[in-house]
């Protein structure tokens, strides 16, 4: 029920303003984007899809920030592991 997955907006349906075709990993489906009428959705934007509706526009900057934090953690971990290894050689 919480199931929401990211998809990319491909195009809007010409005669139906609330409907857009999205792509999820090569699979395409028409969904209702009426809940995002305040956003200026464009093809290429990513949205969160839940029971046939787009609930939220994915903020790519935030996503990048989240990823860089995670990668940083990973890198810091690597560095620490390396430091740990080195400190044994005495």
């Amino acid at each position, binding site marked *: *029920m*919480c*199931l*929401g*997955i*990211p998809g*990319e907006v491909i195009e809007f349906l010409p005669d139906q303003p609330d409907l857009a075709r999205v792509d*999820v*990993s090569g699979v395409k489906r028409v969904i*209702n984007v*009426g*809940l*995002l*009428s*305040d956003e200026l959705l464009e093809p290429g934007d*990513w949205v*969160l899809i*839940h*029971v*046939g*509706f787009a*609930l*939220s526009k*994915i*903020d*790519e900057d*935030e*996503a990048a*920030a*989240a*990823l860089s*934090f*995670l*990668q940083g*953690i*990973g890198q*810091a*971990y*690597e560095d*620490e592991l390396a430091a740990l290894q080195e400190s044994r050689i005495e």
Partner: protein
Amino acid sequence: MRFVDEFRNADTAHALAARIAELCEPGRQYKLMEVCGGHTHTIYNHGLEDYLPEQITLVHGPGCPVCVIPMGRVDDAMALAAEPDVIMTSFGDMMRVPGSNGSFFDAKARGTDIRMVYSPLDSLKIARQNPDKRVVFMAIGFETTAPSTAMTVLRAAAEGLRNFSIFCNHVTIVPAIKAILDSPDLRLDGFIGPGHVSTVIGCRPYEFIARDYGKPVVTAGFEPLDILQSIYMLMLQLSRGESIVENQYSRVVPWDGNPVALKAIGETMELRPYFEWRGLGFISHSALKVREKYAAFDAELLFSVPGVRVADPTACQCGEVLKGVLKPWECKVFGTACTPETPIGTCMVSPEGACAAYYNYGRLTRTRVKEASRS
């Protein structure tokens, strides 16, 4: 898959796990509750508990909207489905929830016209295609799903459809969290906050948890790294003696939620004075019903439902599992009389229920897991 795969990196997970372990005070036990059924599912699906130190226990909360539907309401839904010329439409999760006389699935075997749909819009389509039938949509879910139901009702109204209605069982998350906080049975240290509910209601509604109860809250995404990072953020707050609301899922959750969605809900629905939750009892202002303006789409008004309050079976301990007081395997009938095939309560039947998740995915002690991965 973009925005999914990047949040499943195993090396980063190890790094986060190490950080989390560092933040644990020696000798102290931590209990963190994940509210969302979706989070419970991810935790078991990806074996996340393997990454956490023994000091941290994850407690599964009541954020499974199927799990909290009391038997009486299921019976009401079955009664609706049994009405002549009715096509009942429902999400897959509801199909096996047991009422006093079986589930939708059983009724279907007996010949009742019950159809599984992926979206309320599919239900609308069925209504359009079957003008001589009355189509009822079983509307369940927290605030995540309510906007979609609301938009569907607005669509139906705009099209002047006369054969479509909803049986509204939408519930709201904050009263459930408050009931947990006020419960004497449980002492929690922090909350892994609801993910997709927050895209609609935002993060402000959780501020009272941090402010009045002193528990940190981190709104979390649904990928394994999201949850690990959220646990890390919670542990950081706990180690500093802080309690605020943070948003780990910021790529999807806006701090102020989705005003268009909230408006759609507000236009079509209003809060019920009280509603019964399985296991938590009656909670005031915790559920939605259709507004009078849209009465033509309210199945409870168009049909007469029994509306009888049915107590849970004596053997069922779903209530305690939903509150996090019992772990699934501590329930007396878990895995023996109550299995996914033969569920007694909703925690076992819903794919997001703690019992189902544990039975289907997590049903091994940690020692056995280690043995197997070594052999």
